[in-house]
């Protein structure tokens, strides 16, 4: 027998263990040294999967569609992270958690309802957010003082007990599980403790202080049940254009201000690709613009987009903390770019032997009507297909995705497609391909006046 074969005794154990499915912590235990998946890979998997699922949706028997819908409804109630129009509309379960953004109440138990500032000795601590779920408690704290460094957060008390720890209102202590601390000007810590009972309303975070006799001081915080936090739908700082609603929330996170945008589009299978337009960086006025009522302009950094079902997507713009004397933000978003998946559309075009020929073949791609106006063999093995992407009704079709290698020429001034090029065989007289996705920009502007607390 091979030494790596399982004995009968082992097979019996595997059967017994099999009733657990998989242990909840299996990834943490066996992949502790693995690097988390990068955004590019994640995106690639998502795009692949969406294409496959979308391709199958039309072919699914009714019972499967019903099952999938039930499954989706279940997921929305049990596993959503981030905003979702359906969820918010049906259950009102999405809440805005300061320091974290939009969260779904089924996933959190308690949170800090608003940021808290506490002065201790010569140091000022800002607790920008604290969230409790059934697995852990996480707090984002920023500290300012004469020497802001990690000693403001970690150390030991006079009895040698490790700090920080979290203390419940019944005196139970929850040790630190992990932390991330950075400093330089200010110190910033993300502290993770174990989960605490949902009945708690008051907790203390025990932090080091060598000047105290005990070597410790307690940062007291009051927590609020998740379902009592402000509902996303109640924030009402929204702007509507072209059927797309954008809602903006301002909060502090880490050592930055964060503007979380909830983008709701009625178009199915559309994903937000970009808020603003870096596709044409030479064109001014296409990027988001933020200033306060003191006239201070803020440089905005984008923080990826998390895609949501049915086009709802949270998107973050980060910037330096607001001028303390400012009372209002003015935010303008001139345009938003989307990626949309459509049912594959098959196209067959004649390939001229040489030179350019006029052509007039219309193609319906979702709601966009595209016309192939000419075909040109620019080299013996390269075909150019001239394209008219249709009228500009506030939406510009910038790119289409073909199932073959190709390049697209886009007019840099107008953003409209001009032609597509691909390789052909010297003796080829017909070209067939499919179009499966689109990239388009929608013009706003979406404008906001956001009071600063």
């Amino acid at each position, binding site marked *: 027998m*091979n*030494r*790596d*074969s*399982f004995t009968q*005794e*082992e*097979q019996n*154990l*595997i*059967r*017994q*263990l*099999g*009733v*657990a*499915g*998989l*242990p*909840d912590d*299996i*990834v943490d*235990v*066996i*992949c502790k040294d*693995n690097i*988390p*998946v990068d955004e590019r*890979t*994640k995106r*690639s*998997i*998502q795009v*692949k*999967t*969406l294409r*496959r*699922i979308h391709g*199958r949706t039309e072919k699914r028997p009714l*019972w*499967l569609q019903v*099952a*999938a819908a*039930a*499954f*989706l409804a*279940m*997921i*929305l109630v*049990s*596993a*959503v*992270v*981030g905003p*979702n129009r359906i969820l918010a509309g049906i259950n009102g379960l999405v809440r805005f958690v300061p320091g974290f953004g939009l969260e779904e109440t089924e996933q959190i138990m308690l949170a800090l309802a608003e940021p808290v500032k506490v002065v201790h000795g010569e140091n000022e601590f800002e607790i920008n957010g604290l969230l409790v779920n059934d697995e852990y408690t996480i707090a984002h704290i920023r500290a300012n003082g004469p020497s802001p460094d990690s000693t403001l957060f970690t150390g030991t008390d006079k009895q040698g007990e490790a700090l920080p720890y979290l203390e419940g209102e019944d005196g139970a202590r929850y040790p630190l599980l992990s932390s991330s601390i950075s400093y330089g000007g200010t110190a910033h810590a993300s502290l993770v403790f174990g989960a605490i009972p949902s009945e708690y309303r008051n907790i203390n975070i025990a932090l080091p202080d060598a000047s105290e006799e005990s070597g410790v001081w307690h940062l007291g915080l009051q927590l609020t049940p998740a379902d009592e936090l402000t509902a996303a739908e109640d924030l009402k700082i929204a702007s509507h254009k072209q059927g797309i609603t954008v809602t903006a929330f301002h909060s502090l996170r880490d050592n930055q201000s964060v503007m979380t945008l909830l983008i709701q589009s009625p178009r199915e299978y559309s*994903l937000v690709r970009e808020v603003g337009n870096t596709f044409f960086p030479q064109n001014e006025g296409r990027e988001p613009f933020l200033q306060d009522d003191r006239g201070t302009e803020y440089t905005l950094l984008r923080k990826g987009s*998390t*895609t*949501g*079902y049915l086009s709802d997507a949270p998107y973050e713009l980060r910037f330096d903390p607001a001028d303390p004397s400012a009372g209002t933000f003015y935010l303008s978003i001139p345009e938003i770019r989307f990626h949309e998946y459509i049912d594959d559309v098959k196209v067959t075009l004649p390939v001229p032997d040489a030179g350019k020929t006029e052509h007039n073949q219309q193609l319906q791609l979702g709601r966009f009507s595209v016309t192939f106006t000419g075909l040109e063999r620019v080299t013996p093995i390269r075909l150019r297909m001239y394209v008219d992407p249709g009228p500009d009704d506030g939406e510009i079709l910038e790119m289409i995705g073909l199932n073959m290698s190709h390049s697209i020429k886009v007019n840099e001034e107008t953003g409209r497609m001009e032609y597509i090029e691909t390789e052909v065989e010297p003796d080829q007289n017909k070209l067939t391909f499919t179009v499966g996705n689109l990239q388009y920009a929608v013009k706003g502007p979406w404008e906001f006046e956001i009071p600063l607390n």
Partner: protein
Amino acid sequence: MTILMEKYTSPIHMLISRILAGVGTAQDTEECCSDVFVTAWEQAGRYNANRAPLKTWLLMIARYRALDRRKTLLKQSNLNAADVELETLPDGADTPELHLIHAEERSSVLHALEELKPLDKELVYRRYFLFEPVNKMAKELGLTRQAADNRLWRARKMLREHISENLKEEAADFE
């Protein structure tokens, strides 16, 4: 679905990478991840939240898909001699069938696993949930083959005792 992917792509990718380590490419891992979500979409009606958390179900699909792909890749590259255990698994051990999970027994197994020391736990997870060869694990964890075998033997003994004890306690509580 995008929400589901946003939340679970990372753990699924990590688990699949682990199972395909040394056998598959990054492309295989990506395709396998995509298979997991497509399977979840197609088998949505089979999920039962009372039996196991959603994440567990998705990871079970991921394990099943990755083991299946691993087997295929090994066959293609004629390297399967070292992995014959994949052929000798008990029925159902590498399927994502949620109906095999019984809430009480699951709880008893999970409690028993919690009693293991971290290194033993990793050995048990890799050997009895992902079916990795002992030599490979021993090498990666800096153990001799003998030490890994001994640890697994002790872990099995402890698990059997704890699972049986936990089930007895739960039965007594029920009465």
